[in-house]
């Protein structure tokens, strides 16, 4: 009965599902509402009044801009590194057979399976052992470890779906390695790379744990927000920034989802 098509789910189940979804998403809405509150010391419900002044205040705070700029630069460079390394690694693992292939595949995925705190501690002690001062580049390195995984996973899945004989066909028709990459490999993995890159960017943009271990005095957006919560001053500014972060990470993820779904359709149309 329950699996019959067109048969509506029982009312109880519908209510339970609605409650679950509300529980997940209402708190996020609350964050948005507090961005407009007139009370600046603490969050009180209901908000005593509504104002848009915090957007102007946020706009004029240099620390917000510094954090935002750092986060964008870190995410952009980590993603760029991940795109190159992740694609190369995926190509090697899915195109050739060599000793230790499975091990490499596991080691590449490991940073995302490990708790961030372990990656963070490991990187921190490695940096101090090697006498590397904390800088912009130590944050980028930390982020690149898990950004590579996302790109790698997307690229490996796409490589598996592309027929290996296509590359041979290209060579057979007179294209050298570079031409084959440009005209055959790249067009076939482009959407997977874009999706992987966008996800990597979003991951890096809201990362906290690894960053706390690999950053010196610099603050990325999430670290800045944590600090703000401890110092109660112009609290709704945090909420305004939170709104921006949600938008900056949510839109690319939706975009990436749309791209890979589209890619599946392209791959499936070859039947």
């Amino acid at each position, binding site marked *: 009965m329950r699996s019959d098509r067109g048969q509506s789910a029982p009312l109880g189940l519908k209510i339970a599902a609605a409650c679950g979804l509300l529980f997940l998403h209402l708190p996020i809405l609350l964050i948005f509402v507090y961005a407009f509150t007139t009370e600046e010391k603490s969050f009180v419900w209901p908000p005593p009044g509504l104002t848009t002044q915090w957007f102007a205040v946020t706009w004029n705070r240099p620390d917000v801009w510094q954090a935002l700029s750092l986060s964008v630069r870190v995410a952009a460079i980590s993603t760029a590194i991940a795109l190159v390394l992740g694609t190369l690694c995926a190509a090697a693992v899915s195109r050739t057979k060599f000793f230790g292939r499975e091990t490499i595949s596991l080691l590449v995925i490991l940073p995302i399976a490990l708790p961030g705190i372990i990656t963070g501690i490991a990187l921190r002690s490695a940096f101090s052992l090697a006498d590397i001062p904390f800088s912009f580049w130590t944050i980028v390195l930390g982020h690149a470890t898990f950004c590579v995984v996302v790109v790698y996973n997307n690229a490996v899945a796409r490589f598996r779906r592309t*027929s290996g*004989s*296509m590359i*041979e*066909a*290209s*060579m*057979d*028709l*007179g*294209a*050298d390695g570079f*031409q084959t990459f440009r*005209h*055959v490999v790249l*067009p*076939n993995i482009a959407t997977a790379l874009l999706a992987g890159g966008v996800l990597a960017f979003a991951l890096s943009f809201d990362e906290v744990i690894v960053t706390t271990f690999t950053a010196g005095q610099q603050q990325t957006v999430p670290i800045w927000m944590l600090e703000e919560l401890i110092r109660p001053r112009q609290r709704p500014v945090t909420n305004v920034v939170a709104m921006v972060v949600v938008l900056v990470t949510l839109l690319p993820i939706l975009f990436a989802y749309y791209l890979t779904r589209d890619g599946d359709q*392209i791959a499936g*149309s*070859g039947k």
Partner: protein
Amino acid sequence: MTTAVSFKQVSRHFGSVRAVDAVDLDIAPGEFFAMLGPSGSGKTTCLRLIAGFEQPTAGSISIFGERAEGVPPYRRNVNTVFQDYALFPHLNVLDNVAYGLMVKRVGKAERHKAAEEALSLVRLPGYGARRPGQLSGGQRQRVALARALVNQPKVLLLDEPLGALDLKLRENMQEELKSLQKALGITFVFVTHDQGEALSMADRVAVFNDGKIMQIGTPEDIYQRPSTRFVADFVGSSNVLPPDFVQRYSGQRRWGSLRPESIRVGRAASGEGVAARVVSTNYLGATTRLALDADGLKLHAIVPAGTALPAEGEAVVLTFNRESLHLMDEPA
């Protein structure tokens, strides 16, 4: 006279596996040459050695007199029609066909014109704007053919190109490929595991087994005069007769082969011949295939439709012309 493709003692080993083992081979220009064998017999590796996807472990390969070892696939004047066609899904049919010219930096108008001509050649004019995903299997096969031919290769390699097509389409394509090859005069090297296909299309056939060539010859040679038990059995499922049996009829102690259609099946009381029992009858339409047991020796006979058939389990007498018994080279 130069040969189109020449193998001299060519081997290709993968670790301890001898995929191709000391093969000698000469393919004449303009020849339709088939490499026939079961899977894993080394025929596809031989094709990949000609294409340049594999390099020989030992021996030498020349293509129209030029040494081919160490020459990458993209510098060989040889093109391949792949088993899975390997069309580029992100390009339309016209750009697929024009690909070889595009990477050789032929201008757009010129290469599209050549691609259109190639598509007409394989009877797909006007299909240029479609995507490979919108074509049927047979159409994709033609596109793959056009894509290879547009480069005007000296040798065209075909790797089981008809394997994925249904029977009717396969028969049409066989005729078409053959007339195309005649019209173009290009050397075709064709890999197949289907003996019927090899016999009906090729000028000459090489039968592969275990990385070695068992026999090279015209289809008639291969079919009528197999040189080994393997060839007799693999090409057209001939009856392989043991030396003792052959000695009784020819006086020579050699392995023999007898085609199933050469055996006449008579009633037990009808006179002299090999006494046998009918194990099973298998109706095939135009013919019927009988499985027979002649005192422990398993034989097959094919009788045309309309002949009175013995029942299963019935005792029969088998006769055949002495000439149709072929003595094989393989030592007893």
